[in-house]
């Protein structure tokens, strides 16, 4: 006999069917399959976790030669000489930070305005639909096309500006890649901050309106304070994108192994060094140095992503 109460509380154990009638056999088969099915579902999740962990472990193990050989010097030395096995990542660290931060500074005013426009002024309707589509399209243009466009259109413009300012007219460099990066990260910060802004409870806004506040005052005194941490998270996640962006930056940054002197000078980011030198890297340490940079990128972007998403999630659920 099957004890219904037991089945409901503990789940059914198909092995307990001992009586071998035809129906019971069928039932046992179904239940066995059910068991496999449910475990299989959980297994795929575990596989995903394993993939992620093994990505981290692989990066950590293969960058061991470099960590042993160079130690902490890797982070502050500026010598880059594959022949003598001297590798200092400081120029690339600075290059990555500089391009990403500059891109954030350039893109944030535009992204915030678009987010306020879409989240507050025109949440629905033709105008906002067109705008949303345009921003989505910006996100779907491949990075290599951005890079190509930057090389052909943006570089000459920057070169002209540099000539007027009397700096060396490279054309390519930190500023050029930052501008392209800024264009590329706008969609991410817009869509996230738009979501956050549209989550502001209407009652708060209505309260302010009923007290006679203008829209500007509502935005400045209600919406911005209420969404501050969410907007911060949106910017943070955009930064995560910018740090790891490779192709467009590789094509526009000028690939110089020196510390950039100003925003016009050419440089290199961690991602662009990997892209340029990985297939040419001969020698154990050289390859492992590049992988260590990959590890660094992985760890930083993962930390940024987890914290950013945690903040955003808190927003959307409350």
């Amino acid at each position: 006999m099957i004890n219904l109460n037991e089945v409901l509380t503990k789940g059914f154990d198909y092995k307990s069917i001992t009586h071998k009638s035809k129906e019971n056999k069928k039932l046992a088969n179904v239940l066995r399959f059910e068991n496999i099915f449910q475990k299989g579902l959980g297994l795929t999740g575990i596989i995903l976790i394993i993939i992620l962990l093994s990505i981290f472990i692989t990066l950590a193990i293969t960058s061991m030669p470099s960590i042993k050989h160079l130690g902490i010097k890797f982070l502050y030395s500026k010598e880059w000489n594959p022949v003598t096995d001297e590798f200092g990542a400081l120029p690339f660290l600075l290059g990555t930070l500089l391009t990403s931060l500059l891109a954030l500074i350039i893109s944030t005013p535009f992204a915030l305005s678009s987010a306020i426009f879409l989240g507050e002024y025109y949440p629905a309707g033709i105008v906002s639909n067109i705008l949303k589509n345009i921003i989505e399209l910006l996100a779907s243009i491949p990075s290599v096309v951005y890079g190509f466009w930057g090389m052909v259109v943006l570089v000459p413009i920057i070169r002209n500006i540099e000539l007027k300012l009397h700096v060396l007219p490279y054309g390519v460099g930190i500023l050029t890649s930052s501008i392209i990066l800024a264009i590329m990260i706008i969609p991410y910060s817009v869509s996230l901050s738009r979501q956050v802004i549209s989550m502001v409870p209407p009652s708060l806004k209505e309260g302010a309106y009923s007290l006679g506040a203008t829209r500007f005052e509502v935005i400045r005194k209600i919406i911005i304070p209420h969404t501050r941490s969410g907007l911060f998270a949106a910017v943070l996640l955009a930064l995560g994108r910018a740090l790891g962006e490779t192709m467009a930056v590789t094509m526009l940054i000028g690939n110089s192994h020196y510390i950039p002197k100003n925003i016009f000078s050419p440089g290199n980011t961690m991602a662009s060094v990997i892209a340029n030198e990985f297939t040419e890297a001969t020698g154990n340490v050289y390859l492992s140095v590049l992988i260590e940079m990959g590890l660094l990128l992985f760890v930083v972007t993962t930390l940024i992503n987890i914290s950013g998403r945690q903040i955003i999630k808190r927003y959307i659920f409350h």
Partner: protein
Amino acid sequence: MDKLIRSRFYKDRLFKGGIMLFTVLSTVPLLLILFYIVKQGISSINWDFFINLPKPVGEKGGGIINGLIGTSIIVLVASVIAIPFGAVIGLYLSEYSRDKLSYWVGLCVDVLQGIPSIVLGIIIYLWVVKPTGHFSALSGSIALAIMMLPPIIKSTEETLKLIPGTIKEASLALGVPYYKTILRIILPMGLSGILSGSILSISRVAGETAPLLFTAFGNPFINTNILKPMSSLPLLIFNYAGSAYEDWHKLAWGASFVLIMMILLLNIVTKILERKWKIQF
């Protein structure tokens, strides 16, 4: 008093004007890029462009057939790997949303989405290319498949969560086993979400270059063997854009135009799917 109110109104209007201006300005780059690509690309598009290999410098004409075939094969193989796996994980996350394990799986999906594509290139190089000893299209597909997972998982999870629990309960109450309920009722209802997520993820990885640099590597000839190096449109653009020759630039513009049109088409298909098959209750 009157003055104060007026100044507040002025400020309000000024702010709105500023917001509008910046919003319009942020759409300018897209229009410029599209304008440029269409202008430069359309002149190099003709029938020969689709059926020929790239020609050496100095010779007129030449096409992108190797890139077209390569992109199609690499993306196809990546989809075959990623779509079933991603859909099952999405199903798991929607069914066991209160599980402790599923919290970690969800976190992994978020982290996976944020990994720079170049890092995935390194990983697949270490996992596949190095042990097998040569670059191959298959390794490129695996890298792209990992990139495709997060959007597929998320879209599946979100769609399946929209299906009301009553439908599942009704099926279970009729004595239908759980797995049959999932396979015959829940999954078919959420098919639109899985499909649109898959197409969206295809459109995202079709333009990826960085993970292919050390995996599929590129190939100046037509190759259909997925165990050998293969070209793809983004790789082709990258290689020819960096050259100093006008002919090759032209080729790269044409390839960019084709790539963007492909991605645009996939996006439109996703939109139509979402609108037509939207789950409504």
